[in-house]
């Protein structure tokens, strides 16, 4: 049955509100040491103060720029790599061991090295994000292309599709659902890597801000900044879902995407 979407969204916030109220009650009752974990009320005051100033917006914008640039570069290169791996056996033989060998490496371990090479700032963060996004994009694109059914490629050939056109007309279209799966994973990675890179090697960005408040014991402001990160990341993920839902409206998954 269809429900009013607004009412539906409100219902979904109920568990979050309950958790906040429980947290507040525990703080007020003195069960939690507010020196280490500030109450939601104090965090709200800090949040209002943060949102009043321009600092939080500026730093979120910087972080979004780093995450977005790294994601975009990683996606473009990853799609290309995945396509090449799927279409050329020689290329696959060379690249597969490299992908397999580096897949499980936590990319954040490389941040100090990047900081050494590229210094403190955007380039280090973008490189870390790029590397973290590259592999999920490569692997998912590869999967999507190699799983193209033979009868689809044959039909396309019999209808006059040239070898060049096959890439954009058939293989990439067929891989699109997998590419979006990769993009959603990469989007999550991009925030993690941008923020941890800023904590280690940056003088700006939301990661640096959170780290700075933590260092100085301003935990209410630290939590307020984290709340902003959560909100921005959530909105980005929803935007990604909306775009992929529209692009994949032809796909079998479109019928039940509403409930996801």
């Amino acid at each position, binding site marked *: 049955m269809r429900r009013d979407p607004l009412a539906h969204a409100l219902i979904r916030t109920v568990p979050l509100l309950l958790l906040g109220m429980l947290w507040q009650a525990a703080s007020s009752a003195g069960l939690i040491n507010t020196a280490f974990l500030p109450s939601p009320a104090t965090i709200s005051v800090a949040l209002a103060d943060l949102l009043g100033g321009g600092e939080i917006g500026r730093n979120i914008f910087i972080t979004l720029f780093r995450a977005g640039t790294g994601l975009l570069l990683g996606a473009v290169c990853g799609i290309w790599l995945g396509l090449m791996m799927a279409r050329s056996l020689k290329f696959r033989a060379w690249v597969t061991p490299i992908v397999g060998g580096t897949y499980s490496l936590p990319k954040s371990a490389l941040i100090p090295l990047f900081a050494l090479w590229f210094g403190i700032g955007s380039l280090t963060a973008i490189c870390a994000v790029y590397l973290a996004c590259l592999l999920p994009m490569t692997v998912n694109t590869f999967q999507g292309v190699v799983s193209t059914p033979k*009868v*689809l490629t*044959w039909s396309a*050939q*019999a*209808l*006059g599709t040239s070898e060049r056109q096959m890439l954009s007309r058939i293989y990439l*279209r067929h891989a699109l659902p997998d590419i979006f799966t990769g993009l959603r994973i990469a989007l999550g990675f991009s925030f993690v890597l941008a923020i941890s890179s800023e904590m280690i090697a940056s003088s700006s960005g939301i990661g640096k801000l959170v780290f700075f408040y933590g260092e100085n014991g301003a935990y209410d402001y630290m939590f307020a900044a984290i709340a902003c990160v959560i909100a921005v990341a959530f909105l980005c993920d929803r935007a990604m879902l909306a775009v992929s839902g529209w692009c994949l*409206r*032809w796909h079998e998954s479109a019928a039940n995407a509403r409930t996801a």
Partner: protein
Amino acid sequence: MRDLIRPKIELRQVAKTYATDRAAVLALRNTDLAVADGEFVSIVGPSGCGKSTLIYIVGGFLPAEGEVLVDGRAITGPGTGRGVVFQEYALFPWLTVRGNIAYGLDRQGVPAVQRNQTVERLIGVIGLQGFEDRFPRELSGGMKQRVAIARTLACEPAILLLDEPFGALDALTREIMQDELLRLWLESRKTVLMVTHDVTEAVYLSNRICVMSARPGRLVEEFRVELDRTKPREEIFLSDAFNRVRNQVWLSVRKQALAAESKNAP
């Protein structure tokens, strides 16, 4: 004028071996076949006998030993002159009904006005008005196969290659689709090569039926079918001529299937 001497499709000593991990499997051996212009030829045989392999070879999708000639020239790969319809429809799921039918015309750079006319006409032919902007996932099996046939016809191929085209449909839909195919063929007289495991379907539709042995496939027997296709289905089905050929072909296929069984038994 139709060329009465030179066959439209000719296979000379065509053979196909598949390389698997363990050994090379012979799928098709020493096959000779000639299909005349405007002829409807069906290939029937037990499952797994290499019937589909034959269609894939004529389609130009699989390389094979021997020679495949179309209009007297050896084929070098797939071509728009040979339209193919697969059992699994093989529609492009990201394109609408209209987009699928227009696909081949777009690849050949047909002007938009002419392309749209052809697409609208074919949508009418397959009776899918009102479904033009649906995606394949929203269609039934019968509707998908209609779109697949229309998509192939849009390029106006001289040859139709049908790989168990109605195998995935329910019995009633299959009969309707057979009648539609028969009507299309009577109107256009295209050269058709069809693979099926349905003996009745083969007799109802074709001029000539080739029976294939179990793997490695070989054409073992041939039957001519002389029926007046303009008569309604009921009349054809109840006629002695139809049932005589049907029984002959059925016995021949059954012999091949049983031979395969006894060969596989320990």
